[in-house]
């Protein structure tokens, strides 16, 4: 954006903060006017005049990323202090890798702790990382403090057991059933772990990379992957 447009917007926003809305309403160009209104809203929220300078925008997004990294590292630190020997791999900037054993206790603490209060589980994804390694990823979010975290737990195909967290977040009930249905990860302590999307007598775990379709299902031939028109 050009220099004088930024100047116009910042002047107009300053005037509007003191109560004079005419400066914004008199801007001719629609796009500039709308940007000025957005800047005013932001300024009122944070009590700081936000310039539409591109370098400043980069700085704010960089600081958001840094905040997230710092929060993640701090969270990792807290978990390893409270539950020693639970962190699986080296610290990462975006997610926390945990061992499956203490997961239920950690989850309860994450929800009940005052400063963290992760009271909603956003999404639970299963992953097949190849070579007999399965993973379950949890995206957590706090409605009170508005911070997020991602937790990953790795298990092997021979012993795919992870403690179930459905007592902590009720939404995990169906999420874990779906992960079980698609990947075969066994959630210990789940009160009713059975298939949810596929029929109960389906064989195999479809989203694994080495999945082979069964031959027939109740007399109907199960379709295989088609490479071309037949």
């Amino acid at each position, binding site marked *: 954006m050009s220099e004088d447009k930024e100047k116009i917007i910042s002047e107009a926003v300053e005037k509007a903060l003191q109560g004079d809305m005419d400066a914004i309403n008199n801007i001719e160009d629609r796009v500039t006017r709308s940007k000025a209104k957005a800047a005013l809203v932001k300024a009122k929220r944070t009590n700081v005049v936000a310039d539409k300078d591109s370098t400043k925008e980069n700085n704010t997004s960089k600081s958001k990323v840094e905040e997230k990294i710092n929060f993640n590292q701090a969270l990792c630190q807290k978990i390893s202090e409270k539950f020693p020997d639970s962190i699986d791999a080296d610290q990462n900037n975006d997610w926390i890798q945990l061992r499956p054993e203490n997961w239920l206790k950690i989850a309860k603490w994450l929800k009940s702790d005052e400063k963290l209060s992760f009271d909603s589980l956003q999404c639970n994804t299963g992953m097949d990382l190849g070579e007999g390694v399965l993973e379950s990823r949890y995206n957590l979010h706090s*409605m009170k403090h508005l911070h997020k975290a991602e937790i990953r737990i790795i298990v092997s195909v021979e012993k795919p057991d992870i403690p179930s967290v459905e007592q902590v977040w009720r939404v995990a009930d169906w999420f874990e059933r779906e992960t079980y249905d698609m990947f075969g990860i066994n959630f210990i302590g789940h009160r009713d772990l059975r298939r949810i999307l596929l029929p109960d007598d389906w064989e195999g775990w479809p*989203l694994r990379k080495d999945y082979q379709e069964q031959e027939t299902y109740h007399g109907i031939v199960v379709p295989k992957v088609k490479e071309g028109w037949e």
Partner: protein
Amino acid sequence: MVLNIGPQHPATHGVLRLQVKTDGEIISEITPYMGYLHRCFEKHCENVTYEQVIPFTDRCDYLASMTMNFGYVVAMEQLMEIKVNDKVEYIRVIMAELQRIASHLLGIGAFGLDLGAFTPFLHMLRDRERILDIFEMTCGARLLYNYMWVGGLSHDLPTGFVEATLNFLDYFEPKVDEFENLLGHNKIFVERTADIGIMPADVAISYGVTGPNLRGSGVKWDLRKDDQYSIYDRFDFNVPVGKGLKGTVGDCWDRFYVRIHEIRESIKIVRQAIDQLPKEGDVHQAMPKKIRPPKGSIYRRTESPRGDLGYYIESDGSDTPYRVKMRSPAFTALSVLNEIGAGWLMSDVLGILGSLDIVLGEIDR
């Protein structure tokens, strides 16, 4: 006794099976069974390219295809760090809000249809057809659009789009009051929905319910304001929250009330967006020639008419995704049915199911 409300019932919600334990009239337990429409969306995503995933996302929630596309495209653009130009952003917001109006119209109409009110359903479908005409003018399709692409859009706005949309909004705005009067303040409707199926706020958050269902319980949470994406910060709109005007906070009437008011807010947003729409701009400007995101993963949520729609995309550097998981809002909305539906009469349960506004295509993927 155990009764079955089978997979085939009049085509509003789709193929869902409810197994109810009842003593004749009062239902003590409801177990939903799904999977009758499991179309292996996630398996398909692993085998096709990133652009080819978009038509598959359309077909998951077929009543709100634009917002399904929008969610995927926002997640991909954050993963690849693409910035689109203003014209694309404004058009996306206009399409998403028009789609929200259309989806709510059908949701409310089907809710009334479940309770026996046939006329509002026909009126709402008639007005929804006019929105579908606008969409057809733009991208050629009535229901499944494949309109929003990574980095831009598939077609630019045709001539006459702005006039057609403004004509529609001028025609439609008084109709919303008519619908609210016809259905919402109707004595029979109020008696069948007020104080029924009450969902307290903490139950809703714990079960992961979001969107109009959560706002009907009094929690002011809207991703367009609280978890900012696209250019929603340039518009001035309210977030309607259920207040318990006809009964308690969080009953079925409140969820209906939130949806009707959201239609009004969407009309406001579309008017403001058309007002601010830039005239110049190329909608294909920021589209990459080959979509090959860097290795990594992202989870991004956007606001669909049913709640917060999340896409978890993991890429391994090639041109097909490694894993795409769609976190659908209707999945979690259905899981709360046992909690709020048990203990009511049989005829109330279908009303509660209608007020949750689920779409089976999204639940089963």
